[in-house]
Protein backbone atom coordinates (compact mmCIF):
# COMPACT_ATOMS: atom_id res chain seq x y z
CA UNK A 1 0.00 0.00 0.00
CA UNK A 2 0.97 3.49 -0.64
CA UNK A 3 2.13 5.38 2.37
CA UNK A 4 3.93 8.67 2.72
CA UNK A 5 4.15 8.85 -1.03
CA UNK A 6 3.62 12.58 -1.28
CA UNK A 7 5.96 15.45 -0.57
CA UNK A 8 4.47 18.93 -0.57
CA UNK A 9 6.06 22.35 -0.51
CA UNK A 10 3.75 25.33 -0.45
CA UNK A 11 5.06 28.88 -0.31
CA UNK A 12 3.22 32.14 -0.10
CA UNK A 13 4.82 35.13 -1.77
CA UNK A 14 3.15 38.44 -2.49
CA UNK A 15 -0.39 37.15 -2.07
CA UNK A 16 0.16 34.13 -4.30
CA UNK A 17 0.74 30.61 -3.19
CA UNK A 18 2.91 28.25 -5.16
CA UNK A 19 2.48 24.58 -4.48
CA UNK A 20 5.03 21.99 -5.51
CA UNK A 21 4.49 18.31 -4.99
CA UNK A 22 6.37 15.11 -5.64
CA UNK A 23 4.60 11.76 -5.61
CA UNK A 24 6.34 8.43 -5.42
CA UNK A 25 4.68 6.13 -7.93
CA UNK A 26 5.79 3.67 -10.62
CA UNK A 27 3.55 5.19 -13.35
CA UNK A 28 3.72 2.02 -15.43
CA UNK A 29 2.39 2.55 -18.96
CA UNK A 30 1.21 -0.95 -19.77
CA UNK A 31 3.28 -0.82 -22.96
CA UNK A 32 6.59 -1.94 -21.52
CA UNK A 33 7.67 -5.57 -21.63
CA UNK A 34 9.40 -7.48 -18.90
CA UNK A 35 12.83 -8.28 -20.34
CA UNK A 36 13.03 -11.73 -18.77
CA UNK A 37 9.58 -13.13 -19.39
CA UNK A 38 8.67 -11.06 -22.45
CA UNK A 39 5.28 -10.40 -20.98
CA UNK A 40 3.75 -6.98 -20.87
CA UNK A 41 3.89 -5.22 -17.53
CA UNK A 42 0.34 -4.19 -16.66
CA UNK A 43 -0.45 -0.50 -16.47
CA UNK A 44 -0.30 1.08 -13.04
CA UNK A 45 -0.63 4.81 -12.93
CA UNK A 46 -2.16 7.68 -11.01
CA UNK A 47 -5.39 8.86 -12.58
CA UNK A 48 -6.46 11.75 -10.47
CA UNK A 49 -4.70 14.15 -8.14
CA UNK A 50 -6.79 16.53 -6.10
CA UNK A 51 -5.38 19.57 -4.34
CA UNK A 52 -7.35 21.30 -1.64
CA UNK A 53 -6.69 24.61 0.05
CA UNK A 54 -8.48 24.89 3.41
CA UNK A 55 -10.81 22.05 2.36
CA UNK A 56 -11.91 23.52 -0.96
CA UNK A 57 -10.61 22.03 -4.19
CA UNK A 58 -8.39 24.47 -6.06
CA UNK A 59 -6.73 22.20 -8.57
CA UNK A 60 -7.34 18.79 -10.08
CA UNK A 61 -4.95 16.90 -12.30
CA UNK A 62 -6.15 14.06 -14.51
CA UNK A 63 -3.20 12.00 -15.59
CA UNK A 64 -2.65 9.42 -18.27
CA UNK A 65 0.17 6.93 -18.60
CA UNK A 66 2.47 9.50 -20.20
CA UNK A 67 3.22 11.25 -16.93
CA UNK A 68 6.71 10.38 -15.71
CA UNK A 69 7.56 7.95 -12.95
CA UNK A 70 7.57 9.64 -9.53
CA UNK A 71 5.59 12.55 -10.92
CA UNK A 72 6.19 16.18 -10.13
CA UNK A 73 3.43 18.73 -10.08
CA UNK A 74 3.37 22.44 -9.53
CA UNK A 75 0.69 25.11 -9.68
CA UNK A 76 -0.05 28.58 -8.36
CA UNK A 77 -3.12 30.23 -6.97
CA UNK A 78 -3.97 33.66 -5.63
CA UNK A 79 -4.81 33.96 -1.98
CA UNK A 80 -3.73 31.67 0.76
CA UNK A 81 -1.78 32.70 3.82
CA UNK A 82 0.95 31.30 5.97
CA UNK A 83 -0.36 28.42 8.05
CA UNK A 84 -3.19 27.52 5.66
CA UNK A 85 -3.56 23.86 4.95
CA UNK A 86 -2.87 22.28 1.59
CA UNK A 87 -4.07 18.74 1.10
CA UNK A 88 -3.11 16.62 -1.85
CA UNK A 89 -4.64 13.24 -2.55
CA UNK A 90 -4.33 10.81 -5.44
CA UNK A 91 -6.10 7.73 -6.75
CA UNK A 92 -4.51 5.30 -9.20
CA UNK A 93 -6.02 2.83 -11.65
CA UNK A 94 -5.75 -0.04 -9.16
CA UNK A 95 -7.67 1.86 -6.51
CA UNK A 96 -4.65 2.66 -4.38
CA UNK A 97 -4.82 6.04 -2.77
CA UNK A 98 -2.84 8.32 -0.52
CA UNK A 99 -3.20 11.81 0.81
CA UNK A 100 -1.13 14.24 2.77
CA UNK A 101 -1.55 17.68 4.24
CA UNK A 102 1.00 20.43 4.62
CA UNK A 103 1.04 23.98 5.81
CA UNK A 104 1.69 26.98 3.60
CA UNK A 105 5.01 28.59 4.50
Amino acid at each position, binding site marked *: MAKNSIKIKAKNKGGKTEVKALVKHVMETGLRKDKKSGKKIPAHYIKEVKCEHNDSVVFTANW*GVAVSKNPYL*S*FKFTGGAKGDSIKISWVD*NKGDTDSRSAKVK
Partner: protein
Amino acid sequence: MVSIKRRAFLKGSITTGVLSVAIGAGLLKPNVVLAAWPEDAFSKKSLADALAALGASGAAESGDIKIKAPDIAENGAVVPITVSTSISGVEKISVMVEKNPQPLAANFELSSKCEGFISTRIKMGKTSDVIAVVQAGGKTFTAKKTVKVTIGGCGG
Protein backbone atom coordinates in the same frame (compact mmCIF):
# COMPACT_ATOMS: atom_id res chain seq x y z
CA MET B 1 -21.66 32.37 -10.23
CA VAL B 2 -22.07 32.07 -6.47
CA SER B 3 -24.27 29.03 -6.74
CA ILE B 4 -21.91 27.34 -9.15
CA LYS B 5 -18.98 27.80 -6.80
CA ARG B 6 -21.00 26.56 -3.90
CA ARG B 7 -22.06 23.53 -5.85
CA ALA B 8 -18.51 22.71 -6.90
CA PHE B 9 -17.33 23.13 -3.35
CA LEU B 10 -20.04 20.92 -1.93
CA LYS B 11 -19.49 18.31 -4.58
CA GLY B 12 -15.76 18.32 -3.88
CA SER B 13 -16.07 17.99 -0.15
CA ILE B 14 -18.79 15.36 -0.29
CA THR B 15 -17.01 13.18 -2.82
CA THR B 16 -13.73 13.17 -0.92
CA GLY B 17 -15.52 12.25 2.28
CA VAL B 18 -17.60 9.52 0.74
CA LEU B 19 -14.74 8.34 -1.42
CA SER B 20 -12.35 7.53 1.36
CA VAL B 21 -15.05 5.64 3.25
CA ALA B 22 -16.17 3.78 0.15
CA ILE B 23 -12.66 2.82 -0.86
CA GLY B 24 -11.82 1.86 2.69
CA ALA B 25 -14.79 -0.47 2.77
CA GLY B 26 -13.92 -1.82 -0.66
CA LEU B 27 -17.37 -1.00 -1.93
CA LEU B 28 -16.48 1.00 -4.97
CA LYS B 29 -14.10 0.41 -7.79
CA PRO B 30 -11.97 3.40 -8.75
CA ASN B 31 -13.31 3.60 -12.28
CA VAL B 32 -16.78 4.08 -10.86
CA VAL B 33 -15.61 6.77 -8.51
CA LEU B 34 -13.65 8.79 -11.02
CA ALA B 35 -16.51 10.03 -13.12
CA ALA B 36 -14.61 13.21 -13.94
CA TRP B 37 -11.59 11.44 -15.36
CA PRO B 38 -11.79 11.92 -19.16
CA GLU B 39 -11.51 8.25 -20.09
CA ASP B 40 -12.59 8.96 -23.63
CA ALA B 41 -9.96 11.60 -24.31
CA PHE B 42 -7.14 9.55 -22.77
CA SER B 43 -7.97 6.47 -24.83
CA LYS B 44 -7.76 8.22 -28.19
CA LYS B 45 -4.86 7.24 -30.39
CA SER B 46 -4.59 10.30 -32.59
CA LEU B 47 -4.15 13.92 -31.76
CA ALA B 48 -7.24 15.09 -33.64
CA ASP B 49 -9.46 12.52 -31.90
CA ALA B 50 -8.09 13.40 -28.48
CA LEU B 51 -8.66 17.10 -29.14
CA ALA B 52 -12.19 16.41 -30.28
CA ALA B 53 -12.90 14.32 -27.18
CA LEU B 54 -11.83 17.26 -25.02
CA GLY B 55 -14.07 19.55 -27.01
CA ALA B 56 -11.02 21.39 -28.24
CA SER B 57 -10.92 20.80 -31.97
CA GLY B 58 -10.46 23.79 -34.23
CA ALA B 59 -8.66 25.71 -31.53
CA ALA B 60 -6.89 28.94 -32.33
CA GLU B 61 -3.14 29.18 -31.88
CA SER B 62 -2.30 31.76 -29.30
CA GLY B 63 0.87 33.69 -28.56
CA ASP B 64 -0.24 34.11 -24.96
CA ILE B 65 0.65 30.55 -24.07
CA LYS B 66 4.22 29.72 -23.21
CA ILE B 67 5.56 26.19 -23.13
CA LYS B 68 8.79 25.76 -21.28
CA ALA B 69 10.38 22.50 -22.32
CA PRO B 70 13.87 21.46 -23.34
CA ASP B 71 14.72 21.72 -27.07
CA ILE B 72 16.48 18.40 -26.78
CA ALA B 73 15.47 15.90 -24.13
CA GLU B 74 18.21 13.38 -23.46
CA ASN B 75 15.84 11.06 -21.67
CA GLY B 76 12.31 10.80 -23.00
CA ALA B 77 11.12 9.21 -19.78
CA VAL B 78 11.44 12.49 -17.94
CA VAL B 79 10.68 15.63 -19.88
CA PRO B 80 9.93 18.67 -17.73
CA ILE B 81 7.07 20.71 -19.13
CA THR B 82 5.81 24.03 -17.85
CA VAL B 83 2.82 25.72 -19.40
CA SER B 84 2.02 29.29 -18.48
CA THR B 85 -0.48 31.64 -20.00
CA SER B 86 -1.65 35.21 -19.54
CA ILE B 87 -5.17 34.33 -20.71
CA SER B 88 -7.62 35.06 -17.90
CA GLY B 89 -10.23 32.67 -16.55
CA VAL B 90 -8.39 29.49 -17.44
CA GLU B 91 -10.50 26.44 -16.69
CA LYS B 92 -8.48 23.61 -18.15
CA ILE B 93 -4.96 23.05 -19.37
CA SER B 94 -4.09 19.88 -21.26
CA VAL B 95 -0.69 18.66 -22.32
CA MET B 96 -0.47 16.52 -25.43
CA VAL B 97 2.38 14.78 -27.17
CA GLU B 98 1.55 14.32 -30.81
CA LYS B 99 3.50 11.13 -31.43
CA ASN B 100 2.86 9.27 -28.20
CA PRO B 101 0.67 6.13 -28.44
CA GLN B 102 -1.99 8.09 -26.55
CA PRO B 103 -1.44 11.78 -27.27
CA LEU B 104 -3.16 13.15 -24.17
CA ALA B 105 -0.61 13.10 -21.35
CA ALA B 106 -2.30 15.15 -18.68
CA ASN B 107 -5.30 17.31 -18.16
CA PHE B 108 -5.54 19.88 -15.38
CA GLU B 109 -8.68 21.46 -14.02
CA LEU B 110 -8.06 24.86 -12.51
CA SER B 111 -10.39 26.62 -10.13
CA SER B 112 -11.05 30.34 -10.49
CA LYS B 113 -8.33 31.08 -7.94
CA CYS B 114 -5.59 29.39 -9.92
CA GLU B 115 -3.17 31.18 -12.17
CA GLY B 116 -2.64 29.96 -15.70
CA PHE B 117 0.39 27.93 -14.73
CA ILE B 118 1.17 24.25 -14.46
CA SER B 119 4.38 22.33 -14.33
CA THR B 120 4.96 18.61 -14.50
CA ARG B 121 7.14 15.93 -16.06
CA ILE B 122 6.00 13.69 -18.88
CA LYS B 123 7.20 10.78 -20.98
CA MET B 124 7.82 11.07 -24.71
CA GLY B 125 8.27 8.10 -27.01
CA LYS B 126 10.13 10.02 -29.69
CA THR B 127 10.76 13.46 -31.10
CA SER B 128 7.43 15.18 -31.33
CA ASP B 129 5.48 18.38 -30.94
CA VAL B 130 4.26 19.05 -27.42
CA ILE B 131 0.93 20.79 -27.53
CA ALA B 132 -0.59 22.84 -24.75
CA VAL B 133 -4.34 23.26 -24.91
CA VAL B 134 -5.85 26.01 -22.79
CA GLN B 135 -9.61 26.19 -22.32
CA ALA B 136 -10.88 29.49 -20.94
CA GLY B 137 -14.33 31.01 -20.97
CA GLY B 138 -15.67 28.56 -23.53
CA LYS B 139 -12.83 29.20 -25.95
CA THR B 140 -9.84 27.05 -26.73
CA PHE B 141 -6.31 28.14 -27.43
CA THR B 142 -3.26 26.10 -28.27
CA ALA B 143 0.47 26.42 -28.59
CA LYS B 144 3.13 23.94 -29.53
CA LYS B 145 6.80 23.30 -29.19
CA THR B 146 8.98 20.66 -30.73
CA VAL B 147 11.05 18.57 -28.37
CA LYS B 148 13.78 16.30 -29.70
CA VAL B 149 14.12 13.05 -27.88
CA THR B 150 17.33 11.08 -28.07
CA ILE B 151 16.26 8.11 -25.90
CA GLY B 152 12.59 7.19 -25.89
CA GLY B 153 10.56 6.89 -22.73
CA CYS B 154 7.97 4.36 -23.83
CA GLY B 155 8.76 0.71 -24.28
CA GLY B 156 12.16 -0.82 -23.74
